[in-house]
Every structure is written in structure tokens, then in C-alpha cells.
């Protein structure tokens, strides 16, 4: 490569620089295209105003605003005591009596109530400072974690549990099969491998209707594996992940020299001991990578989870986030953004840190479609 650059260098240099500038410009524009949505969602998550239309690229600095009384009145009740989180759209802070009538003083913006200056029964004059309201970069996250109607933490835990168990089972079961395909020679081995590959052409997402109906029937008798359960979902995920992972793992097992297990066998180890004591530890780093990728894939799966999980309590994170998108998206934009960032973090970290392995896997034509 460097040699042919040298040949050209002499006469083509000035044009090259212009070309280079254009190339860099294209890449910069590409990076803006690639990153703008990410920057935008980060900024939305940090913006204390939850709605879409009041968003700017740089979220406003946290500030404390002193709220003044508009009319004279008497404080009847403190609905939101110091430290409580209030939303402009829903938060009543003080109940007061003005001109003999009961009135609710609502939050002028999203934030935390601080420093209420009156006690119940105190009267106040127009223009008198009632309380402070202070915003925070993290208020959307606070709302996200503490809204009973949308139990985000529960969803997050569900997702983590489902993805952990699934990836563990996938690795364990497929490693067993891969060892057999790699180490034994038996009749029908080739056809079986081909069959597994063939079946895998149909992702089980396609058969969602059949899977739904099947789990419905199973759930009539074994509720643990029925609709709406993590058990059923895990079973579906694990079953669907067999094919591609058996092939992937078999490749790794093939790369371990057979001399190792043969010498172990000579020493009197059975197959199980050879597998468990020798081969398994040897391929463990690869198994971890497969497990992590399987974790990410399961964590991000949305379609089957949405079909099979109907109750809010059993939802996974992606199904829960979908709930934000489908109702009142524009109003809950900031909260959704906070949830989206937390939901994206595991995948983002894993993909960016495993970049080189994934590139290697991709060029071999596997991993993610």
C-alpha cells in the first residue's frame, strides 16, 4: 500500500490534499449523521423539561427559582413537602385559601421543592416568596425509577434476569452439542449439522403466532412456562438460539487440538472429565464472548417479548420502553430518553469494547444480521 502512495506522491500532491479535505469533510458529516440522534437523546434525558418541544441541544443549567405568591392568602396544607419531586403537568404543591376559596398552587416547572417558607396556617401577601423550586439534570432518571405506573426498575431486573439465564443456558447446552459434533464421529452427524443449519433459516420470530398459541396451551397446565412468564420466554429464546450457536461453538472446539483430549483419555479420563476439566476451561474465553453477545441479543429482543408478555409486571425493558413510545410519547420524551439511555448502555459498552472481535466475526459472516 505504502509503496504505491510513494509513486504517486510526486505529481499528485496538491490534488490529493483537496481530495483529502473532501474525504475528511464527508467523514465529519457522516459522524454528525451518526451521532446527532445520540447527542439529542442524551440532551433530552438531562433536560428537566420532559416534553419534546422545549428541548435544546444543550440542556439548561440547573437553577433554583423562587416562587412568589400572586395574591394574598392563607396556607391550608402542604401537598408536596420539601425535597419532593413535582411535575409541571401534575404537581400540586400548596393548598391555599384565597378570597375565601380553596385553591391549588401548582408547580411552575419540573423540579424539586425546597425551602418552603411558610407553615400551615400562615398567611402571605402578594409577591411574598413561598418556596423554591430547583431543577436537576437527573430529574428524568428520578422520575423514571420512581413512577409506580411504569415500574422501570422491575422491567430492568426482568430483562437482566431473562438475558442472564438465557445466555447461560445457551452457552451450556450448545457447548455440549458442539463438543459432540467436534469430537465424535457418528452416523448422521453431517446430516444433523445440516438440518440444524436449515432449520435456523426460519427465525422463531416468524412462528410467533404458533409459539404464542403453544405457550397458551402449556400455561393452562404448567403456569411457570405459560404466557406472561419469564420461564416461557426463556424457553423460547433458548430454543431459538440453538442452531447458530452450535455452529459457532463447533468452530471454536475444532480449533482446540485433538491431541489434548487424546492424551487425557490415555490417562484414563472419560469424555465427561475431558470435556469439563480440560476443553471447557480452554474455550472459556470464547464462551464468555458468545454468552455476552447472546445476553445482548436477548436483552434487546422486543418482538417475541411483546407478544408473549401481556402484564406490565412481567414486561422486559424493551417492552416497557415501547409503552413509552406508544402512549403520550411527546409528553414523556425526557423520561423515555433517560430509559432509552440506560437500556442502550449495556449494548453500547459491549459492542464498542468488543469491536475487533465483532468485526472478525462479521467478516466470517456470522454474529448479527
Amino acid at each position, binding site marked *: 500500500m505504502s509503496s504505491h502512495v510513494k509513486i504517486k506522491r510526486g505529481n499528485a500532491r496538491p490534488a490529493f490534499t483537496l481530495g483529502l479535505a473532501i474525504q475528511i469533510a464527508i467523514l465529519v458529516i457522516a459522524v454528525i449523521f451518526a451521532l446527532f440522534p445520540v447527542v439529542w437523546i442524551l440532551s433530552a434525558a438531562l433536560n428537566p423539561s420532559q416534553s419534546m418541544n422545549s428541548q435544546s441541544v444543550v440542556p439548561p443549567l440547573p437553577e433554583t427559582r423562587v416562587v412568589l405568591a400572586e395574591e394574598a392568602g392563607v396556607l391550608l396544607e402542604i401537598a408536596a413537602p420539601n425535597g419532593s419531586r413535582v411535575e409541571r403537568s401534575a404537581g400540586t404543591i400548596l393548598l391555599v385559601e384565597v378570597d375565601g376559596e380553596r385553591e391549588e398552587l401548582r408547580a411552575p416547572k419540573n423540579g424539586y421543592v425546597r425551602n418552603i417558607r411558610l407553615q400551615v396556617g400562615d398567611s402571605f401577601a402578594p409577591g411574598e416568596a413561598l418556596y423554591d423550586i430547583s431543577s436537576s439534570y437527573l430529574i428524568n432518571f428520578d422520575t423514571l425509577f420512581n413512577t409506580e405506573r411504569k415500574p422501570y426498575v422491575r422491567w430492568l431486573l426482568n430483562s437482566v434476569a431473562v438475558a442472564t439465564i438465557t445466555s447461560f443456558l445457551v452457552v451450556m447446552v450448545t457447548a455440549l452439542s458442539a463438543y459432540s459434533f467436534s469430537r465424535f464421529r457418528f452416523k448422521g452427524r453431517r446430516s444433523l449439522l445440516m438440518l440444524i443449519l436449515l432449520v435456523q433459516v426460519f427465525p422463531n420470530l416468524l412462528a410467533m403466532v404458533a409459539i404464542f398459541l403453544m405457550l397458551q396451551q402449556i400455561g393452562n397446565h404448567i403456569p411457570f412456562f405459560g404466557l406472561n412468564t419469564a420461564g416461557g420466554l426463556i424457553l423460547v429464546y433458548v430454543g431459538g438460539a440453538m442452531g447458530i450457536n452450535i455452529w459457532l461453538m463447533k468452530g471454536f472446539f475444532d480449533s482446540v487440538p485433538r491431541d489434548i483430549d487424546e492424551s487425557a483419555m490415555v490417562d484414563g479420563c472419560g469424555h465427561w472429565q475431558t470435556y469439563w476439566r480440560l476443553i471447557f476451561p480452554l474455550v472459556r474465553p470464547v464462551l464468555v464472548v458468545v454468552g455476552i453477545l447472546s445476553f445482548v441479543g436477548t436483552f434487546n429482543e422486543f418482538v417475541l417479548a411483546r407478544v408473549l408478555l401481556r402484564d406490565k409486571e412481567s414486561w422486559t425493558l424493551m417492552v416497557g420502553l415501547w409503552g413509552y413510545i406508544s402512549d403520550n410519547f411527546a409528553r414523556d420524551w425526557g423520561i423515555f430518553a433517560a430509559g432509552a439511555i440506560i437500556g442502550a448502555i449495556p*449494548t*453500547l459498552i459491549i459492542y464498542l469494547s468488543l469491536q475487533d472481535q465483532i468485526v472478525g466475526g462479521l467478516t466470517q459472516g456470522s454474529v448479527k444480521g
Partner: protein
Amino acid sequence: MATLLPDSKVKRSEFSTRSILRLAATYLGLAVLDAMAFYLVYVFALDGVWELAITIAVITLLVNIINLRQDLYPLRWISPALALMGLMVVFPIIYTVYVSLTNYGDGNLLTKQQVLNLLARETYLPEGGKVYGWDLYQNAAGDYALWLTDGDDGYFFATLGDFEAVTLLAAGADLPEDYQGYRRLDRGESLRASREAQELSFGTAELQIGIAGRKEAGEFAQRYVYRSDEDAVFDKQASTLFYANYETGQFENENGATLRTGFISGTGLKNYVRFVTSPAISGPLARIFAWTIGFSLVSVVSTFTVGLLFALLMQNERIPYRKAFRTLLIVPYAIPALISVAIWKGMLNSNLGVISNAIASLGIQPPPFFIDPGWSKFGILLINLWLGYPYFMLVCSGALAAIPSDMYEAAEVDGATWWEKFHALTLPMLLVAVGPLLIASFTFNFNNFVIIEAYNEGGPPMVESGTLPAGHTDILISYAYRLAFGGGRGADFGLASAITIIIFVLVAGVTLAQFRLTKGWEETSENV
């Protein structure tokens, strides 16, 4: 049969404690599995869910054979994977075929046997049956009981499961406050509890007593009796016969009236015929099909082109911070698709989104990204480009690096221009490596349900589709989803499965073509 490497070793070690333990574990595991499977097969057979009963029986039988026969030892290692695949991948495919040949859907959700089981539980108060007055009792556990008074001053006490005549009480005397651990409820309590108690059936299986009205209770009788010789259900209350009609999956009498619950019945190719004959299905389906192909094609071409362009730019060693550029450019790939689509959906939002606002601030009316079919499709393709180009950028980078550089040098010696080199050398070499991935990407996008669903749930709706829930941006798989689960109109699992089968056939065709094209079978066979 199998060429086990150290056959003799296995036999020798069979007598060690270790292997006895292992054998015991195998038998125990199998016993537990068999017990569970047996239970499932039994209950599914009772329900008439034969397909599941048979599948589970077959899978369990195979697992047993594999684990008990020494000559199938290598398959033992694979048996868990095979069982899981059999139940969760192979069976659903076969089951989809079966469902597509039935009327499975709302109104026909249960097997005939399940419907009969339900009907057998229904009771009625026959005319001329014995009628009692009732008083409600309750015990400490919360169970209700009825004190019954017939017109002839006979007293009876009916609990859940028992019925007895009470002889202790003189005619006309007050009812006891406590009886056999049951306490008489006062008027108010009785009124409140009566709703719950009305649902219950008191007395024994032969003599069922139920509350019929505010004052009356009566002896209930089974309402529907199945007559297997006539394959009909006899309604004792209306004394008419409802014959099983397998065309519609209903029990139907001579006047055409049907029972409330229908059953699943085979309707042959009816669902497939509907594609052709019903204009409300065939019209939208043709358009959905065209859009599915168009969407997949444009997505593949656009992501590949942009990905290749970036990969080519990255080739240039004079560009500074190439590694950083690469990392930043693959960020879209590292974000879950659903979240990415949602972010874009927010940015394109007509009134409030940042992109729409930016366009509006230029004095241009922002396009209706979610209302107009054309702009919706544009939005989806734009998002899919953002989602998909990093994949091809990575793939092309790898493939470009693999092209030997002396080929370029030779071309330069021949005086080839940049375009000639790209056109005659880079592209063909690249396509050989990336071609299969292009086809794989096509089939992936063919079923790219997430982006369609998250963007606008297939909308805007197609007006021509009438009551069927088709949308302008629906692809086949999302349309099948909508038919099955898309609320409102009621589920039509049969039609949805028929569409799924069409997708199966198309995907299988494309994959087969891919294997033909790339001689994939030979390659994979070599790797085996």
C-alpha cells in the same frame, strides 16, 4: 454404529462408583423428565390438543432412547439442544402450517374437546324442577352454605359438596344462628355476599343446587349433553340438537342458530384461497408484498452503498484519527434497534420534533412523516440506513483489507484510473466476499418487524383494506402480526399463519438461491 474413541475405557470405568453415580443421575433425570412429559401428554390429550401431546411424546421418547442406548452416546450430548429445538423451533413451524389450515381465531379458540368440556359444566334450572327458599350461611373459612326450605316445611342444608335433609327443626320454627360450624348471615351480609354465592354450585355432583333469584334456589341440571353417535350437542333447556359444523367450527341447529363457543376445525386451504378471492385481502396484500420487497431492496442497496463509501474513505491512510472515526461511525450499530427507531421517531415528530422544527424554521412546511404514506416510507428507509450502514462499513472494511495490494499496483502500472480500479477490481472482488451477506441482509430486512412496528405500527392505515388492519408501511410479517394480535377486530390466527407460511416459502427460496449462488452447501460441507 458410533466410532467412540476410547470404547474400552468407557466399559472399564462402568464399574467405578463415579460412573454408577452418573448412571443413577441419568436415570433420575430421565425419570423426572418422563414424569413431567407424561403429565403433559395426559392433560393435553384430555384437552384434545393432540399436536402438542404427540410432539411432547415423540421428543421425550427420542430423548429416552438416546440416553439409554450406549451406541447413541454422542447424541446424548446433543439431546438437550435437539429437544429444545424440536419444541421451540421445529414444532412451531409445523404448527404454523397446521393453524394456517384451520379457522383458529377469536370465536374459535378452543379445541372441540375443550368446548365440550366447557359446555358440560353449564347448568340450567329445569321447568318443574324443585324450588326452595334460601338463607345464606358462612363458616370461618369463608365457605358459603345454603339453608333451604321447600314449600312443605322440609328443611335441607347444602354446603359445597354436601346435601342433607334437616329433621331436627320443627315446622315453622326460627332458623338456627349456627349450624355445623356455619353462621347465618344477616340480611345485609347476605345481600352483599349473594352475588358471589350466585356463582357457586351447592350440593353434590348429582344434586346441584344454585341460587336462581332473590328468594329462590333450585336443583340445577346439566344443560348440554354431547351425543357422539350424532356428533351433536343436545340442549336440554331448548330441547334442540346442535350439530357440529366443521366448515364453520360451530355447533349449529336446524334454524342456523349456533352455540356461543365455536371450536377449531380444519378448513383446508380456505385461508389461502382468501388471498385470491377476497378483494379486501388480495388488494392490500399485493401492495404489502410489493413494499416488503421494495423496502428490503432499497435498504440493502442504501446501507451497502453508504457503508462501502465510508469503508473506502477509511482505507485512506492519510486520514487522521481513523480508529476514532470508525468507533464513532459504528455507534448506530451498537444501539438497540427499538431505541434507535424511537429516537428518530421523536426527532421526526411533526409538531415538536427537532428535524421538523429545523425544516419549519427554514420557512418550509415540514413533511408529514407519519401521515403521508410516501413520507412514512421515506422516514423508515432513512432510519434503516442509519441503523444498517455500520454493518456494511465493517464488513466492507474487512473485505477491502483482504484484497491483495499487488493487484492494485499491477493496475496502476497499466495506467488504470481510480474509477477503473474501483469498477474492474475492487467491486468484483468485494462482491464475491460480501455477496452472501447482501442476501442475508435482504432476508433480514424482509422480516425487519421492529423498525416497521416501532416507526408507526405499519401506519398510516390503508383505507381499502376495510376491516382488516393493513397499513401503508406494513411488511408481510408485521401484517401477519396485526392479523393475529392487532386488537379491535379480533384475532385471525389462521390467516396470519397462512401469511407466515408464504413468508417461510419466500425466505426458503431466497436462501436456497443464495446457497446455489455461492455454492454455500459445498463450503459449509467442507467445514463440517
